[in-house]
Each structure stands twice: as C-alpha cells, then as structure tokens.
C-alpha cells in the first residue's frame, strides 16, 4: 500500500506504543533526530529501567548519565524491517519482558526475526541463575523420585527393625540388630525388604520366589543344624513352605477343610469315600474336583463330565429351572490395597501378641522356649484359625445361597 518513499515521508510510528514522531510529548531537551540506521542499539540495563520506572529518565537531571542511558524520546531502528521504528524506551521494555519470560533466548524482531544487537553489560549472574534455574527444573522429577524412594526406604528399614523386635523378642533382636557397628547387607537390604516381603506374602506374585528366599539370604551363615525345637534360622526357612501349604488349596490341609465343609453341606457317601482316597492315595478323583468347584466358583478347574462315571451330587442339588444364585465371594487375597497393606504390616504385631498369649501357658512356654518360635507359631495359628472361620462362613453362606440350611415353614395358624 505504501511505497518506501511514502513510508519515509510519513511520520515515524513506534510499533510498540503506536505514537508517531509528530505527536511526541515535548521533552525538556528535545533530542535531535538521530539517524535511524544506527547499527548498534545502545541500551539501559534492565535495572536502570526498573529504577526509573516512575519518572521519565531525561526529566531528571540528577540521574548520572552513563554511556548506556539514553533519552526516552530517542528512536531506534533495530532490524531490517523498513518502517519498523520504535522508541528506545518502549523497545527496552519489550527486551526486558522477553528477558524475563524467555530467559536465555536472544531477543528477536517479531516480524523479521532479526536478533537485536543489544549492547549491555554481560549479565554473568543472570546467566548463571538462568542456568541454575533450568538445571533445577530438569532435575525436579528425579529429585522428587529420589526423595520419595529414600523416604520409603528409610521407613521400610525402620519398620523392619520394629518387626524384628516384635517377633523375636528383645534378646534375639538385640543380637540381630546390634552388629557392633558392622552394617552389612542385612541392614541395608534385608531390613527394608521385610515389609515388602510381608506384603508380597499376601499375594500370589511371590509364590515362586519366597520358598527359596531364606536359603539365599542365609546361605552365608554357619551350617544349619536341625534341632528340636528348631532354631530361628530353620524356622525362617520353613515358613514359606508352611505358607504355601496353607495357601495352596490343592494341598491336604485345604482338601480336608473342603471335605468337612462338603460333609456339612451335603452328607454324601460318595464324597466321604473321596476324602479317604485323598488322604491315603493323595489323588483327587474328578468328582471331588467338581465338588470343590461348586464350592469354589472362582477356581478354574475344568470338569470333564464324560470321564466322570458317577453322579455329581452337588451339581444336582440345584432345583431344576432356577438360575444359579450369585455365589458368595470365596475368601481369598485381600480385596483392596488398604486391606492388603494393613493386613500385611500388622502381622508382626499380631504375631507378637499371639506369642505372648502362648507364652502365658506354662506347658507351651517349655515346649517353645524362644520368643521367636512362640510368635511364629502364634501367627500361624491366628492365620489358620482365620482361614478356617472364613471357609466355614463361606460354606455356610454358600449353603444358604443354594437353598439348603434354610427352610420356610408352612403356615400353621
């Protein structure tokens, strides 16, 4: 629209405040019009702008003039854009803003992207601070992660120490914990592993690892001698196996439980025979699997009815034409994370309490001389007792759900 000549004839307009040359507010000492082609743009430092923000710089004769201070009304043409002139002070404010919002980036003309040639004191402090700021920002995620990990680690270690004291009793714990200042892998790795192992022991994920773990940890100890009552080391080695035996329902303990539950459920001779087969031959016939499947709807035991020659007593207890009622939840691993954590982490306290109770009986005290043994046996009894109660309750509810154990009486009035 405009030719270059027309642009030059027209009054210069500051592209920042939009004021043109002709309507510049009169100054105390009007600056003679300077060539807009001045190559270098001399500038105030940012601090100078901020310091003078309440007064027009040129209006104050007291302010010491330095080589970098300039008249507010001075014009500058910092880039190759034709007609893109600006008041020096306006542009300085723009530069100052850019320096704060985009620290470290060169300030460019927004139109032609020419990097402004700014004559300013080398801002070493600012550069160092900007570098530090950027470094901090990039380090924040790692630092946070490290801090959280360290916190968890320290808390786990402290918990491990507590668990040892609670289950082993003061004397044994003292000999374990005070290593005469020699903090080995047991302190650094073993103790923080205690809460993790406790939590894992409530889940299936550690089933394959836990049985061999004690041997790995204790392998550098003195040769393990089996005595009666067993030493804490031996007990520790057997604990995962005992846990496995309790957890795995294919094992005898739970088969027996299931048997009694089934017997209560439906006094059936066929299953009664099965339990003897199980106990004596350690084999499970298909019909018992089927029976346990009806008891445990969540277990994915496949039933091959073609192979089963005999009747399936439980499956037929269902009235014809009725949809099967929703089975009650089988007691299993904890249903939520808080329950999981609480159950796992309360174990040492429970063990300690149960051990104290066992220790109160003189006969048991003589049979189980150490605190650790009493705690272990106590915890085992508590777990076993809880499981038996849960299974019993489960079978009871299952029975109700199937319509057994509950009968509506005829109206006799």
């Amino acid at each position, binding site marked *: 629209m405009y030719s270059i000549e027309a642009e030059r004839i027209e009054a210069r307009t500051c*592209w*920042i*405040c*939009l004021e043109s040359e002709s309507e510049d507010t009169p100054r105390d000492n009007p600056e003679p019009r300077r060539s807009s082609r001045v190559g270098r743009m001399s500038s105030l430092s940012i601090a100078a702008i901020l310091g003078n*923000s309440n007064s027009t710089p040129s209006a104050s004769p007291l302010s010491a003039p330095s080589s970098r201070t300039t008249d507010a009304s001075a014009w500058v043409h910092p880039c190759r854009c034709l007609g893109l002139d600006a008041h020096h002070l*306006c542009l300085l*404010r723009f530069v100052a*803003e850019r320096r704060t919002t985009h620290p470290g980036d060169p300030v460019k003309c*927004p*139109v032609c992207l020419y990097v402004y040639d700014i004559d300013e004191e080398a801002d070493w402090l600012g550069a160092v601070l900007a570098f530090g700021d950027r470094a901090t920002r990039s380090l924040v995620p790692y630092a946070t992660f490290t801090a959280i990990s360290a916190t968890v680690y320290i808390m786990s270690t402290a918990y491990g120490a507590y668990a040892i004291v609670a289950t082993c009793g003061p004397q044994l714990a003292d000999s374990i914990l005070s290593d005469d200042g020699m903090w080995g892998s047991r302190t650094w790795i073993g103790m923080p592993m205690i809460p993790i192992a406790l939590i894992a022991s409530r889940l299936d994920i550690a089933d394959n690892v836990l049985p061999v773990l004690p041997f790995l940890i204790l392998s550098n100890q003195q040769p393990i001698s089996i005595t009666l009552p067993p030493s804490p080391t031996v007990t520790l080695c057997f604990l995962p196996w005992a846990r496995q035996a309790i957890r795995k329902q294919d094992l005898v303990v739970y088969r027996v439980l299931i048997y009694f539950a089934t017997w209560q459920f439906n006094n059936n001779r066929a299953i009664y025979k099965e339990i003897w087969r199980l106990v004596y031959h350690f084999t499970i016939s298909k019909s018992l699997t089927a029976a346990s499947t009806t008891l445990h709807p969540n277990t994915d035991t496949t039933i091959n009815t073609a192979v089963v020659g005999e009747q399936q007593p439980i499956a037929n207890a269902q009235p014809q034409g009725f949809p099967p009622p929703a089975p009650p939840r089988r007691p299993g691993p904890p249903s939520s994370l808080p329950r999981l954590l609480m159950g796992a982490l309360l174990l040492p306290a429970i063990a300690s309490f149960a051990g104290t109770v066992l220790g109160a009986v003189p006969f048991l005290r003589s049979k189980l001389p150490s605190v650790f043994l009493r705690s272990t046996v106590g915890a085992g009894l508590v777990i076993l007792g809880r499981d038996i109660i849960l299974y019993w309750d489960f079978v009871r509810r299952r029975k109700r759900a199937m319509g057994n154990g509950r009968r509506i009486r005829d109206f006799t009035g």
Partner: protein
Amino acid sequence: MTEGSNTAAKRLLKEINEIHKAAARPGGVDSGVLHLSPIAEDSLFSWVAVITSSETSGDSPYKGGRFKVAIEIPEDYPVRPPTMKFISKVCHPNVHWKTGEICLDLLKSAWSPAWTLKTACVAISLLLDAPEPDSPLNCDAANLLRCNDRRGYDSLIKMYTSLYSETD
C-alpha cells in the same frame, strides 16, 4: 500510575483512534470483527469484542454466529498480551466450553507488541474456521475432527452456533 500503565493507556487510546478511522474508511470494517471497544467510557483496560466467522465465501459452520469476547488488558499492555475469553458459549476444539478460554499461541508465548487488539481479534475469528485439533481444550469437538467426521463436526457446531449466538 506506573509508567507501564501510562504507556498502555496511551497505546489503547491510539488503538481506539485506529478502530474509528478504519470504521470510517470505506471497506475498512473487518469481516471477522463486528465490534471492538472498551466496555465503558471510563474502563480503558477491559474491552469487549463481537467476533464472527471471517469466512465470507463457503459455508462455515459458524456462519451467522456472533460471539462476544471479553478482553482484559494488563497494565504493561503492549509488552504483555491481553487475556481474551469468549463470553458466549462457543463449541470449538481450541475453546474451553465452560470458561471460554482460547488456546491461541499469540495470546501466550507468541505475543509481541506488534499485535494490536484488533489484529488479535481477527486472529481469533480466523481460528474459528481453522481449528487446531492437536491442542484441544474441547476434546469432544477435537475428536470429531481427528476422526475426520467433518459432517458430524459441522452439524454439532451449527447446532451450538444457533443455540448460543448473540442476537443483538
């Protein structure tokens, strides 16, 4: 008053003059910006604009819609960008449905004093028909576009435009 707000006030007065001058020129009214002025005589730092689709030919789904934009101007204005928000409900991938927030780089990082309130409003009116579905504030609208459901997108926009367009 600080020096910054002083400069801002001067510049805003300049912009008002420019808008009046442009309105007086034949053909000076921009197709996308129907109205742009301070809310009241004494409030130089909050403006209101009425924006429409700047697409004259073709059938923009925003055609005929008039959308109010609230403009808040900071004290150090030409150096810092103004904040612009739709007051009218606008269904657009880059406009927040509830707050009216506009996702446009020139209102944030790409701002420079070379922009004016007028040019910023023109940019917003251009954004209406050039949505950027990869930085969405309205995921539902953006997903329609990303799935190339142009028909669904257009009819959704048309519905909301006819529902919420300002009528004055």
